[in-house]
């Protein structure tokens, strides 16, 4: 990889927007990895569709981040020319697909959060973020419904599907806390009404998740120790491998178009 990384002026609003854009891109890319591999054709289409929604959200957010930053970065440069330490996505979303249960649990934890988050963000004093939120919440409502139905089907299914779903919950649970964390950079935006405080969504999120998991005859772990780092660029090893694939073409053939 010989193409230089871009430099980003991470003002609070640029950083905020990049964090959400990275969330959408990385999870969308993970879902695209299922293309042609899902357990059945309908699910192959469902995963690709959800990935496409997320990719669309990522593009809107990157474009807005570029506009706010006001340098010569654009959506492609943000996606292709930043390395692992410059990515700001949640650790949960870069976790490998694993088996189907693990992919569904990851998607379920995030979709139930994103749905509440974007609905609340429709009240943002930032008109562009409010508009992106209004589109995203409609899409996430479907992601919530789809993944919730799968959690119940897997948990309340066979012994094998139950065990896999429970194992996925146990392994991914420690990454859910980062969704509700706020740092100083974001606190200022919350005070200004540009962002909303995700911590206020936690009770409702927990209620939804507990309800579906209970119906699925599964259980949430007792531990509440939570792993963080993605928002400040400290990632698991998995993200580097993901970016290696995601960025290989533009890094190998800079400026190539088709």
């Amino acid at each position, binding site marked *: 990889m010989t193409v230089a990384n871009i430099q980003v002026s991470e003002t609070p609003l640029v950083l905020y927007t990049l964090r959400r854009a990275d969330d959408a891109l990385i999870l969308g890319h993970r879902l695209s990895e299922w293309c042609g591999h899902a357990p059945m054709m309908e699910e192959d289409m469902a995963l690709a569709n959800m990935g496409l929604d997320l*990719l669309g959200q990522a593009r809107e957010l990157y474009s807005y981040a570029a506009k706010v930053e006001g340098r010569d970065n654009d959506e492609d440069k943000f996606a292709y020319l930043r390395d692992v330490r410059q990515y700001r996505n949640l650790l949960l979303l870069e976790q490998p697909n694993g088996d189907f249960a693990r992919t569904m649990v990851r998607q379920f934890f995030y979709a139930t959060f994103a749905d509440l988050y974007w609905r609340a963000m429709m009240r943002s004093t930032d008109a562009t973020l409010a508009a992106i939120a209004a589109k995203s919440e*409609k899409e996430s409502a479907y992601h919530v*419904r789809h993944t919730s139905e799968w959690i119940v089907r897997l948990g309340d299914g066979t012994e094998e599907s139950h065990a896999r779903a429970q194992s996925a919950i146990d392994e991914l649970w420690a990454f859910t806390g980062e969704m509700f964390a706020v740092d100083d950079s974001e606190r200022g935006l919350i005070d200004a009404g540009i962002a909303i405080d995700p911590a206020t969504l936690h009770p409702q999120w927990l209620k939804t998740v507990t309800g579906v998991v209970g119906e699925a005859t599964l259980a949430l772990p007792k531990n509440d120790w939570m792993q963080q780092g993605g928002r400040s660029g400290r990632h698991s090893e998995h993200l580097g491998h993901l970016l290696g694939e995601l960025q290989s073409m533009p890094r190998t053939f800079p400026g190539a178009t088709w």
Partner: protein
Amino acid sequence: MVMAVLNDTDLRQRAWEAASQVVDPEIPVLTIADLGVLREVEVHDGRVEVAITPTYSGCPAMNMIALEIELALERAGIAGPTVRTVLSPAWTTDWMSEDGRNKLRAYGIAPPQASNSRRALFGEQQVACPQCGSQNTELLSEFGSTSCKALWRCKACREPFDYFKCH
């Protein structure tokens, strides 16, 4: 084509007529006006600007639609039109015209229901088969051949069909 100089009102009218004939590349029986994707046409100093709104954030048809609009306007003798994308207010299937719904049904796609039904978690939906009209149908997949559609099957005539999701 040599055109008489049009005033802004006539130019806007001509541009709207041309743009509103552009069809959705995925559902060619619907125009972008039927869909509610075509939001407005403005004329500034003799230059035409068309505003469209995406159905879904990731809809890959949007680039194609923008290109088709530019071509349609050029064909109507309007030089150098621009197309911009607006996000707000967010597109909803409630904007789909009645004519559009009928055309969808005739094409074999069940038209969308009112948008408040999308939040029904585990909700029972009743979608009529566009082929035989039976209400005895079942959901095969929440996500269909494009972002905006789900896959259903009619239990009466056994035909699978697309349902245009409410949004």
